[in-house]
């Protein structure tokens, strides 16, 4: 991997330059919330913000979009014009999240809608300042070694810039004079300090060790019922989670014809309709079964299959659930067999 150095004041110029490649998007403040938005330049971004409400998944599979136009001659893929986009300011956990989604959408039966957007999106990561909700160190996602095109680590005086792909390198080549290859002893020490600092920041107390077994043992534990009694079935947790990918598909028709579109939109396993099959049988009729599915899928099943949970520790469920059900409280409750206040 190529690592370069860049002066902090050059970032703005650099971003100005790369806008030639595509639209620039980054975390921007809208009132009290932070969302990924199209921006003109660095000045409109808030690089100190810890997390956006929705992760960058919205760029790769939008909340709702059209898959096909159809008429009685058949289904025609809607190749909507997806613009070239540069997402600046993505944090390591979200890049980890995108990697999980890449595996799902790009391997067997590659999803052309995802692939198209992924292809046209450059990921320019940025180091972050964790808050009390972040769990990245418990998940080993506080740093990232791949999966981005460029990654900027802010070392106060300058940036260290990881070049993660050939397309990232092309961006660097647009303004080679802004980058410096000479990394010295101080830089290495500096970086090491930064790593220590970052690890120390994360205080959520999340602990995912031993989860597959603890889930298995606690499968029938009453704590699930207690959690389900509190759960609003609002689905917010799944909408904000970077590794939730479920979707539903419906056909819409044009007035007076059978022509129309096949649309796809985010769905959630927290909803009753999710597992309902024809004839009214529901495999997860009870809220508790649905809650259990979500957590089992993220924290047990994924570990059994891939050796790691699919949770990337971004803290969004912690920041979002109005009744405090999230990976931290659920794992803690399972471990201690008690639902915390």
């Amino acid at each position, binding site marked *: 991997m190529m690592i370069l150095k860049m002066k902090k004041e050059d970032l703005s110029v650099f971003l100005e330059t790369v806008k030639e490649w595509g639209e620039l998007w980054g975390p921007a403040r809208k009132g009290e919330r932070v969302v990924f938005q199209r921006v003109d330049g660095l000045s409109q971004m808030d690089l100190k913000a810890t997390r956006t409400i929705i992760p960058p998944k919205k760029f790769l599979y939008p909340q709702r979009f059209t898959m096909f136009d159809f008429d009685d001659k058949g289904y025609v893929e809607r190749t909507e014009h997806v613009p070239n986009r540069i997402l600046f300011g993505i944090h390591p956990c979200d890049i980890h999240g995108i990697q999980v989604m890449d595996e799902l959408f790009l391997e067997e039966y590659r999803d052309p809608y995802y692939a198209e957007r992924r292809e046209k999106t450059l990921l320019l990561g940025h180091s972050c300042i964790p808050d009390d909700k972040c769990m990245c160190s418990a998940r080993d996602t506080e740093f990232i070694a791949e999966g981005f095109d460029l990654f900027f680590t802010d070392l106060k005086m300058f940036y260290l810039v990881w070049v993660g792909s050939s397309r990232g390198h092309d961006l660097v080549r647009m303004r080679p004079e802004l980058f410096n290859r000479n990394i010295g002893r101080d830089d290495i020490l500096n970086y090491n300090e930064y790593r220590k600092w970052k690890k120390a920041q994360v205080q959520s107390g999340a602990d995912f060790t031993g989860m597959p077994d603890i889930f298995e043992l606690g499968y029938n534990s009453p704590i699930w019922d207690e959690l389900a009694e509190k759960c609003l079935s609002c689905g917010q947790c799944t909408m904000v989670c970077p590794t939730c990918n479920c979707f539903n598909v419906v056909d819409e028709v044009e007035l007076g014809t059978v022509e129309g579109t096949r649309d796809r939109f985010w769905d959630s396993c927290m909803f009753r309709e999710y597992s309902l099959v024809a004839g009214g049988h529901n495999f997860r009729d009870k809220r508790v079964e649905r809650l259990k599915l979500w957590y089992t899928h993220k924290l047990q099943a994924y570990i059994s299959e891939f050796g790691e949970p699919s949770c990337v520790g971004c803290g969004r469920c912690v920041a979002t659930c*109005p009744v405090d059900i999230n990976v931290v409280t659920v794992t803690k409750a399972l471990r201690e067999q008690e639902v915390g206040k």
Partner: protein
Amino acid sequence: MSSPRVGIYGFTGCAGDQLMILNCEDRLIDLFGAVDILSFAMAKSDNKDEELDVAFVEGSISTEEQLEHLKNIRSRAKVLVAIGTCACWGGPQAMKLEEGGFEKRYKGVYGDAKIAVSKALEAQPVDAFVKVELKIPGCPIDKTEFLSAVSKIVAGRHPYFYKFPVCTECKWKENLCILLEGKFCAGPLTKAGCGAVCPSHNIPCVGCWGPTDDLNVGAEYKLLIEKGYSPEEVTRKITKFSGAEVAKLMKGLELKDMEAKK
């Protein structure tokens, strides 16, 4: 495809759903072209009472005369679609349906005066009296949802509506959750379809789409009590638009216990 014969009727409500049909300005002319509108008293005068493929009924039923008319419409219509929260769930005028006390409220307004046009009933949703094949809720209905449903019906297909709560659309729009600020929001209890307009304007959802398919009234109730609302206020707030229905759901809950626990 011969165009379906349609009637649009209004009972007690604000006429907002019929108005929303007229508000489909860009599609109004297409709409009148795709279906054969035999009756739509709010928009035309040559109305006919004939056999219908689809009757759209707005408003709750609140007089005996209306009830007779509704039954007559039902007997002529193959499919009866309730449009708007009043027709689907009773609307604001039905918020105290489960509580009783209609006589007293009625007297509070009309005193002992005799009204001869018809006998008043406490407002109830359309399906309290006749079979309803489809409900298109909303206060008022949403243009997109309405046109989607009508287009499907005309094409001989089944309409589809979101089965999840307002919160889902609210998150799609990337709003901060109002409940987290300790303030009331009916989003988790309310059917989606409006695009979460209110929370997107920093205003709590008031529940005007009526109850969603799978709601946890008890959890919401408990949460709001914890945030310092009084039980009366929570009840009033969550029964405002579809009181009858939500009140039914609340019946099994040991609300008093919850308060005691607090």
